[in-house]
């Protein structure tokens, strides 16, 4: 916002902590609901794990020569769980509220506050119960890593470097997802309602759930290209999961390029989403009474 006085710069970190605290207080007010939400998230996790265990009863790997055997694939799943839970905890409730703010005209008050509007609408609410999925992902990752390190054939322990890179690229993945979400919810300023947009979000991110190799044949190639280079959701989980599950040292040039592209794509997504958000705000005409 241009009208923000230079001398009065809010402490963003402290504001964020206040938001987090408020949300926690709010979640704890309805404690039974909180517990039920956690239980249902865990139920969803168990169902997915069950589904993949069933698949691995019939096959050794996902895709011929892709190297995604059971343990590595579960590391992939854990990565998906980490990223999704972070997105769901921090951004999903806010994106939902954002379209409501636009519809009701409540965005006026957000615009008036002496703080960056995108920051305000992106972090106001935190859904703590979604973090139960983060824990679930952690359990999956630990079990998968343990099994991967102790198996008789082709055991593997990730190096410290790959762990560090893993954490960094999980951050990149979350940033890409966040950008996509901001872009989608910003369009609700133009469109007014965004019910289909949420479905859209769900359907697009659905593609990120599996190793990208599975799309790379036949009529999947256009999808592969589109979701790697235009809307880079395939990078979100794939890049960190590969860094952890596959050895780093004998790495092909393709894989290195992919990692580099993930960095560039993260940067570009954040920039583009910022631009889209600002453009959308310019078109905002309050909902007057």
């Amino acid at each position, binding site marked *: 916002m241009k009208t923000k006085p230079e001398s009065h710069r809010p402490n963003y970190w402290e504001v964020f902590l206040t938001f987090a605290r408020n949300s926690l207080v709010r979640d704890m007010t309805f404690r039974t*609901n909180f517990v*039920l*939400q956690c*239980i*249902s998230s865990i*139920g*969803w996790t168990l*169902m997915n794990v*069950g*589904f993949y265990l*069933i*698949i691995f*009863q*019939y*096959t*050794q*790997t*996902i*895709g*011929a*020569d*892709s190297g995604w055997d059971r343990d590595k694939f579960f590391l992939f799943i854990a990565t998906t769980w980490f990223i999704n839970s972070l997105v769901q905890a921090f951004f999903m409730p806010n994106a939902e509220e954002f379209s409501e703010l636009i519809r009701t005209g409540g965005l006026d008050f957000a615009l008036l506050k002496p703080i960056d509007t995108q920051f305000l609408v992106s972090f106001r609410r935190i859904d703590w119960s979604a973090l139960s999925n983060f824990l679930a992902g952690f359990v999956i990752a630990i079990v998968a890593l343990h099994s991967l390190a102790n198996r008789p054939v082709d055991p593997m322990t990730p190096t410290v470097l790959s762990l560090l890179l893993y954490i960094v690229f999980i951050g990149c993945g979350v940033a890409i997802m966040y950008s996509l979400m901001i872009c989608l919810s910003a369009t609700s300023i133009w469109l007014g309602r965004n019910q*289909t947009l949420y*479905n*859209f979000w769900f*359907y697009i991110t*659905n*593609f990120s*759930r*599996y*190793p990208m*190799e*599975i*799309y790379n*044949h036949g009529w*999947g190639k256009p*999808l592969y290209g589109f979701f790697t280079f235009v809307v880079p959701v395939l990078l979100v989980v794939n890049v960190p999961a590969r860094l952890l599950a596959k050895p780093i040292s004998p790495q092909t040039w393709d894989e290195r390029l992919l990692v580099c592209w993930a960095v560039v794509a993260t940067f570009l997504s954040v920039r583009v989403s910022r631009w889209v958000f600002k453009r959308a705000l310019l078109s905002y005409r309050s909902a007057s009474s």
Partner: protein
Amino acid sequence: MLSNSWHTDPGPPSPWSRVALSSAASNSEITEQPHNKGLRWKLSLWRAILSTALGERLVYRGDFALGTLMRFLPIVTQIFLWYAVFDSIEAANGGNIEDIEIRGFRFPDIVAYYLLTMVARAFSSMPSLASGIATEIRNGEIKRYLIQPIDLIGFLLLTRIAHKLAYYAVAILPFALVFFLCRHYFVAGWPPWPVLVAFTVSLVLGFLIGFFLEAAIGMIGFWFLEVSSLLFVFMLFNFFLSGHMFPLTMLPDNIATLVNLLPFKYLAYFPAAVFLGKIPEEDLPMELAIEACWLIFFIVVCRIAYARGVKRYSGYGG
């Protein structure tokens, strides 16, 4: 707010309690109203409800058609996942990918299965039915069914039929398009006509079971204020146990036996399995009869829950 017992409150009648309903009594009174008689009156009522709901639904037909096409997108990822699975089985064991079977499903069968479960779900899924009932109970809107000569469950059923009809009228185009594009996955072609008849019957029964099951769950709102988390848990179970996620035959044997005894399979797995000929033709009448029994069971449960719930319920205000 809802089960606050007005009956036991001996205080002076306030202006609010004038409209508070001791519902069971007023309900039976209402059904004896003179104009609520005759088949013709009923038919005209049904027609009115149907045409209103149809009109209401067809307003958003563009959004509808697009939304329906989008709903096939998750299947795309499932298809790729299963192709990768079959591909790696082929690479490990040799042989042709067309001949590899997992529990009686070859790769094209799996794709056809997912497509057919979409059809089954188009019949059996009842978006926001249970939550709608629970909301109406909570905010008191439900009392209009207690004072108007309309039966709640019948009204909801008719509205739902109308919504579904409107949905099919629009959704048939995207469905036809997708099925036409994927026709080569239906290796066996059209099934013989007895199977087709059984398929149609299973779809209709699936619709009814879905309706009464969800309606019965919505009635829980008479007992608990907030049911959204409960509904979510139910939805999860439904997703897994109905076979929407994967063909139920792939479950380990003992679990599969158990899941086969549950009614969830009629919401997605069963119609698809019938169409693909996974259920022997001579078993079809028996299976359909069991399905019909489940339907009767849910109708009874729904009715009892409603009658009991209405007895608990007291509404205030206009």
